[in-house]
């Protein structure tokens, strides 16, 4: 009902931004090349796509039940985080001005989605599948490791513990966004910040592919940094969550590179199957 209208609006804007970024980063020639040989490119990454889809499906299932499991086996550490970190987020918010709030709110929603989806397109447009495979594996690792933390650690964000020091800026400025974010966020899962870890994964990958896509590196790095800052500016995450997210994002890429290097050949589709699916 109410979710649908926000979802449609966000999707439309995201699609527009993706198209724009594709033109700037991949360029019309690259896009054309991709369009004419889409099928073998997609088929080449079927194993990794299957992995990611499986992980996302698991995540959806977990989102419904993991809180219950967490309350039984996990530890609630919000106060401990606050004692360790102090009032960093509260201080950050003293720098808030309405324009920044709008910027970071848009970044948290639109910027984040574009940041995560675009590299899939960009790497699909390459003539070799490795970066895309690595990216998809890194995404999967982010979610799986994140899930393990969510089951063991229950932590609420600063807006929930110290409302006198930290405002839920996103939801006071754009209350309707919460009908969207509550589909994927659980208030007890702030540690680690997956917004941060996935953004850092994209940033790291963008850095690694900066020679092929210099413009993407120039976009992804500041955009990713904005997403990371937005999670704290908006009062959603502690700095500790962000630090953990950065570590997770980096580790996920290193692990993904290792996995694709080590197991890349074994997990690729067998040549015969590839040829058949790719329509050769």
């Amino acid at each position, binding site marked *: *009902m*109410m*979710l649908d209208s926000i979802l449609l609006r966000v999707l439309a804007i995201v699609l527009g931004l993706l198209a724009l970024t594709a033109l700037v980063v991949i360029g019309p020639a690259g896009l054309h090349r991709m369009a004419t040989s889409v099928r073998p490119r997609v088929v080449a990454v079927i194993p990794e796509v299957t992995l990611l889809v499986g992980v996302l499906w698991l995540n959806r299932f977990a989102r*419904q*039940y993991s*809180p*219950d*499991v967490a*309350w*039984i*086996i996990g*530890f*609630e550490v*919000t*106060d*401990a985080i606050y004692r360790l970190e102090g009032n960093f987020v509260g201080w950050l918010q003293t720098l808030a001005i309405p324009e920044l709030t709008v910027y970071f709110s848009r970044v948290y929603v639109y910027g984040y989605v574009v940041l995560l989806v675009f590299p899939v397109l960009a790497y699909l447009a390459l003539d070799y599948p490795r970066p895309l495979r690595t990216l998809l594996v890194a995404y999967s690792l982010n979610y799986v490791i994140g899930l393990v933390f969510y089951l063991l650690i229950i932590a*609420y964000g600063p*807006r*929930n*513990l*110290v*409302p*006198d020091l930290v405002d*839920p800026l996103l*939801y*006071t400025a754009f*209350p*309707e966004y*919460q*009908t969207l974010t*509550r589909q994927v966020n659980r*208030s*007890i899962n702030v540690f680690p910040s997956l917004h941060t870890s996935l953004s850092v994964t994209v940033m790291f990958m963008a850095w690694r592919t900066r020679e092929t896509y210099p413009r993407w590196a120039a976009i992804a790095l500041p955009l990713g940094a904005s997403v990371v800052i937005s999670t704290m500016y908006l009062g959603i995450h502690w700095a500790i969550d962000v630090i953990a997210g950065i570590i997770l994002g980096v580790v996920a890429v290193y692990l993904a590179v290792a996995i694709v290097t080590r197991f890349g050949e074994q997990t690729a589709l067998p040549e015969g199957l590839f040829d058949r699916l790719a329509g050769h």
Partner: protein
Amino acid sequence: MTAALDASTVSRRTLIASATAASVATAGCLRELRSVLTTGGSEQLSLSIAVIPASNDPVPIRIANRLRDNLEAIGIGASIELRSARPFRVDVLYNHDFDLAITTHPQLSRPDALYSLLHSTLGPERGWQNPYGWDDLTADELLETQRTATGTEREEAIGELLTRVAEAHPLTPLWFPIRRRAVNTDQLTGGYDASFETPHDLLALEQADPDQPLSVSISAIGPTQSLNPLSVEHRDRGVVTGLLYEGLLRRADDELRPWLAEEVSWMGDTAEVTLRSAQWHDGIEITADDVAFTYDLLADTSLGSAEAPIPAPRFRGRRSLIDEVTGLDEHTIELTADASPAVAEQALTVPILPEHVWHDRTDFASVEGYLEEETITEALVVDNLDPIGSGPYTVEEVTDREIVELTRVEDHFVDEADEFDDLHPLPPRIGITVSPNDGTSLEWVADGAVDLTLGPLLSEIETEDLDESITLVETPSTACYHVMYNTRRPPLSNTNVRRVIAQLLDIGYLAEEVTTIEQSPTAAPLSDTVWVPEELAFEEVHPVVPFLGSSNELDVDAAQDALTDIGLQIDDEGRVIQPG
């Protein structure tokens, strides 16, 4: 029911319905592990404060932060334990796993509600039955007296009781909040300034277009996860389940209105009840057997099969008012009460449950046959999202964390009987949507997507920028914000310690500053001040445990002196030592 409901119900039942069972089973050993890890074996006295997160209600956590600051200022270690609504109830009300807690009791309007809140024999029980574990024989006697006494004798007993509670201090009442709601007055023309503490207020709403469904917003997800009227973890006041189930009498404003009962006549302490002709949602006739069964089930949800009775924590106080329930014939029941009729008739408001559905739910709760927990029955944890009630509405669809859609039952007696004319016409459907925040609720009301914010607005609202179609309404509530002490745990078992802790709170200041609407502080856990003796009136300061300081500035020396006066020791670093 829709396919979506069936598929998710099966798997949800496995986990969510038994999560409580598992929580209870593992709570004890996990608590020990947690306290070892968090306190590290320190000698300093330290207490934890359990509260719900700010996004549920900003008031308790604001109070908790100040209490924590003041406890630490005087040398008592304090930590805050955030718990979402459901785990909060499981920890605090089910497992009694807390030191201090700050929360709202859903309803403290009638003096007899204090019986189940405070009677010592109810300490071991779950739910809002003496969660403080308080043990006071004087209070017990007064609680029993007020059940049978009438007139001035009763008034005096209640006055003495309230004074005793303030002095022996198992809880620190704070205030009964004025609640604020948003209404779309183009769509609702009357009845929207009710307190909405009973389902009857929803039925009494007047719509501009009675053919339109009624749409309300709530903030709690409880009704989307469980529609079991007996559930402790999911229910607050049971307004939604109250539309699906009904009692012999229904609360309507300050009266009790005959509902499933056509007539109730009292002779001394015995009531004879004649049932209306009514059906369950599956068409089966409601009989005296269902009524007798319900009262039996509430008293012991295992119906005798467990070693010790497992009563339903909800409605416990009301159930305890009744001694015996006998079916005289298909449509007549006799109830004998343990109290005067004025008090006992409250017991006739409990929801009547269909025997043919619930008699199968008296086994111990378990996860698919494993992890059986022998102190909880299926009846207490089943999510019941496919309820067979007798109410004027039945469930059409439930979406987890989002919406509960109800639709009218055909030929319900509320439609037929003239005595319910004041409620006609009832909306054909009712949609209860979960709103993530007040800003969204206000947008929905302005759009007309929602008629009324049933869940009150709890955050700061800029009243000047409000859309024109929104009207804000403020009504008093019988919910009681209060500080809970777990008197089972030393040193909170010591009355003096509790009183000193209470004196760390400047309640008058808090009533103005941490709330979005200024509230009136109270020293007694009863919303109706008619019962509160003059000496207990909260004027400038608390009459029994005044704040040790002024204008929210704690006098640390005075507070530490108060601690040493009662025998606690403070070391050279200003830390209070855990008493041996």
